[in-house]
């Protein structure tokens, strides 16, 4: 018996050692596969033949030809959970993302938002939408050519029924829009009317949010929705948890294969958009693939190896990829900051903390921070500096920058690292160190704060360290603390904040979108969110200013551009005067870094596209147009 075990063990060891050697012998295999894929048997062109069950081996191609497949990273983390466009928790990053720049590969919105020019362009819609005279409702038409994957036409009734379903089942979309949209009705097969909730003046309460619905939310087929409702017995929870493997779509791609390691979409050869009234052709890549990498490092390694074409991950010192490593890699802008900044990662002051209700303390900390170090270290210069784009409430896009009067708020600007200025400010306010322990006191109590960011969010953590260092230089003791995100978000979104540990904390602000910069300003300053619970909106520090509230409320209904500019300028003035929070850097909407080993002609600054295709990974809003422009490096 023992001898047999010994022999077996030796055999096992031998087998493994030999197999490992065998592995080295076949080293060239993966590379060969990519370079010269075995000619696949042509898959039946009917896309509905694609498997309806995930993790099932699809018929047809089993090796995706590299020259017909475009690979992405940085979007899909973890496995796809479902294909249900009513649910916002399918973790299906490429196909279900109803947001300002909605992803329109499988499901489509009436309009596409373009963050570069701030305009919306029709997708399912035919022509521009129009407000009525009294600004109470929007009318738009559906393109006659638009049809579903089952061949039936997309109608106004589908748009209306989608909205009715959102409201009936209280989906996230319904819950967040019903305060502004009264109803969506189909006037005829092609004509949709969106009736706004009216304010006291008899006009739409918030025209901006009503309009943004058109480019943020999908149109879902009525017939399929009814089938879903029948299946779940009209139960709200069941409707939102249905995996929707049988869903009907209108977009250019659909699911081909998913498992715990990847998501593959396949082009729908019957896509309506090849009609002359839309794109006039099909998107170029037949397959879109996204491997599920477990961290940024793995995704970047694959990107460098040419296994990923479009990366949406932060790559530290991205310029090294082409300058030092000589890879065919590029970003939207050829020089720093390499990307178009869109959102403003912001440090919020907890205005309930001791001493932080004092403007002098807040301002001293804000002007003492070394922002250039933050931008150089945390963002490796992939952010514009505050010398290049002075701080305001606007992101660095030209559209938003033009919305306020730069000169009017020039005297309120600060570029940081103003230690002497900060010290003087505190001295003048009488906030000095009287007991000689090195820390200033306010009304007899030392100023001691904890600055915090979620653990593992390395760029935010690096930024917060710089904030803490600034405090020490001006006699305010700031230490850092990094709780796990699960804990962090629970605390930050529920007022009151704890008495310590959350005095200065990082949170995001809105990126680019059809309601911006209004929505970002509202989320940064509006008192409607101050001191609330379940607050996923903003103003987490509890700031209140009646003048700001009045302007924020007025802007959505403003149509006069001069008045609008004046209002925005005033809001910037209030923000830079009160400093309830302060922006630490600019961050792009997507990092959009491309490896042109296989595909080329990606969006770049000055690429000549009209309207310009934004650098948003070829699927968000108008950036989907990029999928029709790409070409092969070696056809």
């Amino acid at each position: 018996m023992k001898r047999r075990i010994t022999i077996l063990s030796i055999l096992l060891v031998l087998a493994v050692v030999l197999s490992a050697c065998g592995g080295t012998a076949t080293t060239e295999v993966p590379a060969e596969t990519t370079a010269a894929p075995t000619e696949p048997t042509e898959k039946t062109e009917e896309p509905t033949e694609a498997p309806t069950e995930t993790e099932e081996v699809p018929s047809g191609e089993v090796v995706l030809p590299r020259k017909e497949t475009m690979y992405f990273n940085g979007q899909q983390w973890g496995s796809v959970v479902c294909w249900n466009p009513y649910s916002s928790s399918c973790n299906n990053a490429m196909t279900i993302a109803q947001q300002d720049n909605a992803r329109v590969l499988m499901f489509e919105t009436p309009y596409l938002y373009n963050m570069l020019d701030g305009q919306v362009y029709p997708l399912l819609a035919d022509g521009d939408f129009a407000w009525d005279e009294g600004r109470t409702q929007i009318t738009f038409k559906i393109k006659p050519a638009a049809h579903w994957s089952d061949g039936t036409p997309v109608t106004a009734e589908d748009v209306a029924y989608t909205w009715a379903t959102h409201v009936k089942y209280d989906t996230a979309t319904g819950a967040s829009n019903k305060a502004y949209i009264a109803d969506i009705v189909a006037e005829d097969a092609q004509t949709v009317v969106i009736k706004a909730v009216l304010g006291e003046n008899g006009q739409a309460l918030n025209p901006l949010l009503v309009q943004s619905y058109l480019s943020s939310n999908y149109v879902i087929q009525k017939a399929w929705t009814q089938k879903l409702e029948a299946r779940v017995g009209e139960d709200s929870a069941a409707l939102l948890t249905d995996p929707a493997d049988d869903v009907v779509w209108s977009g250019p791609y659909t699911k081909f294969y998913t498992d715990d390691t990847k998501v593959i979409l396949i082009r729908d050869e019957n896509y309506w958009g090849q009609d002359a009234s839309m794109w006039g052709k099909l998107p170029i890549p037949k397959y879109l693939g996204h491997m599920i990498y477990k961290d940024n490092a793995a995704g970047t390694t694959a990107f460098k190896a040419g296994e990923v074409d479009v990366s949406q991950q932060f790559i530290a010192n991205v310029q090294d990829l082409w300058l030092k490593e000589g890879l065919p890699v590029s970003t939207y802008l050829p020089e720093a900051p390499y990307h178009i900044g869109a959102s403003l990662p912001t440090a919020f002051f907890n205005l309930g903390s001791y001493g932080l209700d004092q403007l002098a303390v807040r301002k001293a900390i804000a002007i003492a921070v070394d922002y250039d170090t933050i931008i150089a270290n945390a963002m490796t210069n992939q952010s514009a500096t505050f010398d290049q784009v002075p701080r305001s409430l606007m992101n660095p896009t030209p559209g938003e920058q033009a919305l306020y009067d730069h000169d009017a708020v020039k005297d309120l600007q600060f570029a940081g690292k103003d230690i002497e200025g900060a010290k003087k400010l505190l001295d003048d306010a009488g906030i000095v160190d009287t007991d000689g322990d090195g820390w200033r006191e306010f009304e007899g109590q030392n100023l001691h704060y904890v600055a915090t960011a979620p653990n593992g969010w390395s760029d935010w953590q690096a930024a917060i360290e710089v904030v803490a260092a600034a405090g020490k230089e001006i006699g305010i003791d700031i230490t850092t603390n990094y709780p796990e995100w699960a804990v962090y978000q629970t605390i930050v979104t529920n007022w009151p904040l704890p008495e310590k540990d959350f005095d200065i904390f990082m949170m995001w602000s809105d990126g680019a979108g059809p309601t911006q910069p209004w929505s970002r300003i509202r989320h940064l300053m509006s008192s409607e969110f101050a001191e609330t619970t379940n607050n996923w909106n903003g103003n987490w520090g509890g700031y209140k200013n009646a003048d700001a509230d009045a302007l924020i409320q007025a802007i959505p209904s403003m149509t006069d551009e001069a008045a609008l500019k004046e209002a925005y300028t005033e809001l910037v003035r209030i923000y830079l005067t009160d400093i309830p929070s302060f922006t630490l850097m600019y961050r792009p909407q997507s990092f959009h870094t491309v490896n042109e080993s296989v595909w080329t002609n990606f969006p770049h600054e000055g690429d000549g596209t009209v309207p310009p295709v934004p650098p948003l990974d070829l699927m968000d809003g108008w950036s989907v147009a990029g999928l029709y422009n790409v070409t092969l490096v070696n056809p």
Partner: protein
Amino acid sequence: MKGYRKYFLNKLLWLFITLIFAFVLNFFLPRLMPGDPVAAIVGRLAQGMSDTTGMKAVYERYAELFGVDKPMIQQFFIYVRNVLKGDFGLSFSQFPRPVADILSSSIMWTIGLQFPAIIVGWVIGNVLGAVAAYSRKGWDKVIMPVSIFVSNIPAFGMAVILLAIFAVDLKWFPTSGGYGYDLIPNLSWQFVKSVFVHYQLPFWSIVLVAIGGQAIGMRSMSIYELNADYVKYARFMGIKDRTIIKYVFRNAMLPQITGLALSIGTMVGGALIAEIIFSYPGLGYTLLNGVMGQDYPLISASTLIITIMVLLANFIIEIVYGLIDPRIKAAQAE
């Protein structure tokens, strides 16, 4: 045999009691962590939306759906009832995916990676340790320092070294994934080969680290046994070296077998390091995300499986010990 039956029943009873306690702890401990997983789900929904003022209602609906608004003790009994029906509920971190689906899709990857790696590491390590102990001079001078060196490389260090040398520099192996990034699973030679090639680096990153530790342990045990009185006595008696070595290694193996059983019991926890560095599919990273995202149902289900496997492995080892080692049987039966 009567003594053995008593020993067996005694062990079985303790197994059952431990299981009950572990089950209760598995349920309550994750729920004692600070933080609110439902808020995390709602937070994910809210991101990127133009207006999120309606999120409070959404939060309340999800809290009701998951039952986290009920008292903890009531949640526990609901959980017990569901588990007895084989229903582990819906995951929080991958909502609305059922926990059973998450486990079933990743557990085979984990077992496929861990089980052979543990066995191979254990066998090679013990053989090397025994050889070192027996030969003393030449081999030992090499095996000991190398084992100590290798076993002290942290697992992530080993994985990163292998990745950098064999995947990034030499390009002999792929950098990530369970199979080719351009493949769809199918029963072809090409796919099998791809799985095999992708398997190597994660596999060896675990095995190499395991070998060193096992070798050191086995060497110490063997040297101890080799100097035991019974060995000297056997030598005086003129018994052949081969026969003596059999006795020696049989005794030296006992603690190593316990270690093996524990490793196999805990292997479902996943090879976290290898999974992360090579983006290899498996349960380890899923579980880590579950813990980070306070995915109670997923944590409870995974820890329950791990608990059961460790208990079973221990139980089997103790039963086998009772059979093969009369000293233990005698001691336990008293």
